[in-house]
């Protein structure tokens, strides 16, 4: 009696079958299947590329726009050293103006007393000296103070005076050379200063007028 194993594995049957079964899969079919297998794997990465590509484009465009905007901010940079120097000078003067304005604000409260100091008769020598120093300071910084006063007026709503001041900026707060050509025109200029309540400047101009034209007599004010 044959065993089950012998029945399941007859070498003659196996050999006969092996001799018979020598076929191989067609090469074109192999190529098709290998291509399909590789394509399926690539598809997985292709899906990744499917969203990576738009994201990459968006990122590129975004970075380009950011770069262009950044560059456009530097278009105000002066092309020549002369321009740069001019702008630097302007910025410097602006800073000085601001500093003087601040200084004037700090000395705003005692200023009327200082202005009146030289007019006070019988003042002590120390007070007179202080008044002289203040006078010198105010002379040096007259234009600056005028601008500061105008600014303060603008701040307090005196737009009209500020507009006139803007006109006077043409002659820098003083009477110009044409106005100083004669005592009358100079005095007219001083009157204008007084009208504009630039009393300090008017007084300085009047002093200068009297020095220049000693014979000039100031007309009596209208009552």
């Amino acid at each position, binding site marked *: 009696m044959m065993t*089950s194993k012998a*029945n*399941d*594995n*007859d070498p*003659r*049957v*196996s050999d*006969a*079958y*092996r*001799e*018979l*079964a*020598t*076929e*191989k*899969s*067609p090469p074109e*079919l*192999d190529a*098709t*299947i*290998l291509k*399909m*297998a*590789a394509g*399926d*794997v690539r598809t*997985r*990465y292709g899906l990744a590329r499917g969203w990576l590509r738009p994201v990459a484009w968006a990122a590129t465009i975004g970075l380009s726009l950011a770069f262009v905007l950044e560059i456009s901010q530097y278009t105000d940079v002066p092309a020549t050293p002369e321009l740069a120097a001019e702008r630097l000078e302007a910025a410097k003067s602006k800073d000085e103006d601001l500093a003087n304005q601040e200084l004037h604000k700090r000395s705003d409260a005692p200023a009327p007393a200082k202005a009146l100091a030289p007019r006070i008769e019988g003042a002590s020598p120390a007070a007179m000296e202080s008044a002289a120093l203040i006078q010198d300071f105010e002379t040096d910084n007259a234009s600056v103070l005028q601008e500061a006063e105008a600014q303060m007026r603008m701040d307090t709503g005196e737009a009209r005076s500020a507009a006139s001041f803007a006109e006077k900026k043409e002659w820098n707060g003083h009477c110009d050379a044409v106005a100083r050509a004669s005592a009358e025109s100079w005095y007219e200029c001083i009157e204008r200063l007084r009208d504009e309540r630039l009393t300090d400047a008017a007084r300085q101009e009047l002093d200068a007028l009297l020095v220049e034209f000693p014979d000039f007599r100031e007309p009596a004010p209208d009552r």
Partner: protein
Amino acid sequence: MAANAQTVSNSITALCSEPTLAYIPAMAHTPDDCALMLRYRDGDVAAFEVLYKRHKDAIYRYLLRLCGHRDAAEDIFQEVWGNIVKARKSYRPTAKFTTFLYRVAHNCFIDHLRRNKRHSNNTALDPELFSDPGETLEYAAERALARERLEQALKTLPDEQRDAFLLHEEGGLTVDQIATVTGCNRETAKSRLRYAVNKLRVAIDEPAEQ
């Protein structure tokens, strides 16, 4: 816990070991089927190529003998490997790869039978399947007779017995694995294989006795 992990590891190692196919030369130092499939699952196309070249001819012959028609066999062959490719993402080495592969092939063949009702038991293999231009006339005549006898014998086998025999010969599957692939119990699979081998042996011996 560690013992369980070791047991699982041993089971997977045993499952992933190479099938003992007598006609396939021993491939020492080559990755086993499970490892190749796992590598392919992770995107290694070269691993699939190795796996495919290792099994393609056996699967092709299995389907060719089952169908008896080259065109149908090629269609099913392509379908089988297409399913393997699709299944790679969900592949788990819970069984031997050959069992998995021949189960897919068997199911594809069953689907083919359902789709093509015209298939019958008296399938005839194409004569050109067996042509070999390099052999002499006498030897070719002998081989042709042997092929004819075996062909007739295979043709007379019921589908289940032929299936069991081809799984055993081409896939190198054991009785248990044949039972797993064909969806029957072990005794049924063993019986089918035994009947098939006996019938073929008788068919081979018959002409010699005459």
